[in-house]
């Protein structure tokens, strides 16, 4: 298992964003679903070692990120795309991805090839010399994905990665996710359930800081009672589980 979470809690003052989450996952694409404010981003930020938990146990890639040495080793093998990724508008696509490759200590001899590969995988090869300020929102999001995968991470955490992507790009991105999931643990946080259905082998549904469902997309779809709102079975299952958790 690359992610082992036990009773993980994160509080911001009096607000409990993540309330005692337990989660185990290994290689493959794992979907994290939930409405806005469910705690998905807080959970992902803790998994990315960007924020320490208030309590509970967190082991990533077999290590406890509480110590600096282990945290560095985890980060060496980690990729992270935040929900609202900023960027340096003056950098070109290549420079920006190279910047992160250097920060992630990708071996010098491999930096150029790793950057080119990452850019090609998000299909921005023809824009590699474009400055980020000239790119559309969807392209910038793909640059963010490229920086996250430039070090060929074993644990990839993507927070709303398909926001701003057009349908064609989303289809391509799902294929990329499936490909990445063959070698790494990919955790995708999203509120777009169709992405989960298409790309994820396992999903968890969060609500009010807790995981209220964990299983396959098919199992989630099967929770639908037929009367629940939604256009697809998985959306109806999503609504049914949320309604049940809140009742």
């Amino acid at each position, binding site marked *: 298992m690359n992610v082992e979470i036990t009773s993980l809690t994160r509080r911001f003052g009096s607000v409990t964003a993540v309330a005692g989450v337990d989660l185990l996952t290994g290689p493959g694409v794992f979907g994290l679903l939930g409405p806005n404010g469910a705690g998905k981003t807080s959970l992902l930020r803790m998994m990315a070692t960007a924020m320490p938990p208030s309590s509970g146990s967190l082991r990533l890639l077999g290590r406890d990120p509480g110590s600096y040495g282990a945290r560095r080793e985890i980060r060496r093998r980690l990729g992270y795309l935040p929900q609202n990724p*900023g960027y340096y508008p003056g950098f070109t696509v290549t420079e920006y991805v190279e*910047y992160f490759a250097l920060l992630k200590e990708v071996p010098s001899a491999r930096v150029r090839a790793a950057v080119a590969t990452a850019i090609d995988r998000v299909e921005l090869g023809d824009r590699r010399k474009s400055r980020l300020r000239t790119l559309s929102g969807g392209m910038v999001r793909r640059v963010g994905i490229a920086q996250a995968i430039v070090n060929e991470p074993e644990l990839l955490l993507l927070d709303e990665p398909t926001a701003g992507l057009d349908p064609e790009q989303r289809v391509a991105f799902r294929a990329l996710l499936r490909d990445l999931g063959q070698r790494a643990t990919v955790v995708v946080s999203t509120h777009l359930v169709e992405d989960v259905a298409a790309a994820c082998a396992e999903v968890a549904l969060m609500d009010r800081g807790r995981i209220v469902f964990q299983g396959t997309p098919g199992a989630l779809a099967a929770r639908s009672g037929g009367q629940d709102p939604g256009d697809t079975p998985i959306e109806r299952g999503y609504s049914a589980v949320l309604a049940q958790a809140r009742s």
Partner: protein
Amino acid sequence: MTAATRVPAASRPRLVGRRPGLALLRLLRLELRHNAMPWVLPIAIGLFWLTTYRKGVAMPPLWNLRAAGLQLGAQLDFAVPVTGAAAWMGSREARRRVTDQVTVTVQPRWARLLAPWAATTIWAMLAYLGCTAVLYGVTAHQASWGGPLWWPAAVAAASLPAFSALGFVLGTFLPGRFTAPLAAIAAFFVLTLSTELIHGSQSYWNVSPIVTGPWDLGPQAGVATFYPFLPDLPIAQVMFLVGLTVALLGTLALPAGSGGRALRMVAAGLTGAGLLAAGTAVGLAGTGTMDAHGMIAIPALHDAASDQPLQFTPTCSHTAIPVCLNPAYAGYLSVTATALAPLLSQVAGLPGAPTRIVQDAMIYQQDAGDEVSIRPRSPGDILSSPVSHLVLPDQTQGQTMTAGQLASTVITTYGLQLVARVTGDGPGASQAQHAVAAALLRAAGGDEVIVTQPTSGPCRGPASAPSTRRSGPGRECASQSVGAARGTPAAAAAERFDALSAPVRHAWLVRHLAALRAGLVTLAELP
């Protein structure tokens, strides 16, 4: 939970192809390419040209003046923009909302932040060094003697990393779009106000990098021309700036999460060491006092060898009495010798006239309060001495005169001194001595020479070079006059004596000078 998962995944090979130094260089290259400093460099260079270069080249081509102007001006021109640019770069991660993305990378926060700071500093330093090279290159082309003074340039250079670090730390810990302009404005006021509390030559505030010497004295052309430049204060200033830089950069790694325990301990150690160095430098600067040569001497840093006069071969004129100047003042020789030539031809060979006129150094003394006394090194001309001492006006006034102003001032100061020496004119002299002195001065300087009765007052000295008292930069009083007041019988006699031809005047003086000096000649006996 699966038991097998308790075994950590194997670490990736760390050494194969991983060269941290090369990676940091590539990071630095990226930061150099995308730094804010090049955008403000035109402003800095423009300010340098406007406020430092133009003023510098308008000053006499003396290394000490140009170096002091560089130290003061270049810091204001470059330190303020670099502070703003560094604050902008320091706040970049927060402004651009990339904090989370970069936080979860492998590089320690310290190394990540040092790259943009270094890039900002390198740009500023390159521009500063270029501007310094131009100013010093022009000075080397114009100066007749001496060489570049590197310590003042080093102080200005050391201030750039310090102000860059200050701005960067402000930007990092207080990120915002207004941080950069506020930091730049703060840097300007910190620099300019840092000298406000200096009273006298001994002050802890002398550590301010824009202090180039005793603050009450202002720029002095004569300083570091006859005696070596004292590096005492610049050493303390560089020590202060380096300490400040190290301490500020150390603080970047102090917050939790900036790195491992060892890294943070190193940072804490560096911060402490930097503060200690800066504090020591402040303490050293506070022990400095103005020495007799117009520079700040710090006992703990002072090299006694610096108190020995510089050895040089003077540049001399071919006038009736040779005028010999310090070679640094060779550019003044022509005007000085031309101004004095008519007078020298009148007095050459007379009893009491010197056979050689040599430029003298000045001696500085801190008086009570902010006042500084300046007097020639030689106490005054001795009649029997074949050497007379000359002080050029620019040596004490610290400003450029036109050739006409210089000639006029040389006549009214040194010319007057020489005439007084030869005729014995001065307080208590006879009317005939006043008249002859006035006539000689008129013959030497024409209508430009203002001849008045000898005055009395605190600034009056013996019949030698003027003594000057300064109370803060630029303020002074100086007076010395010999001759006859207009409308008096002595003035009428002076006009009569002046109307004689030069050979006749000279011949009369050869015959009657001893009697004139003894007060035995009356106005009526003057031809």
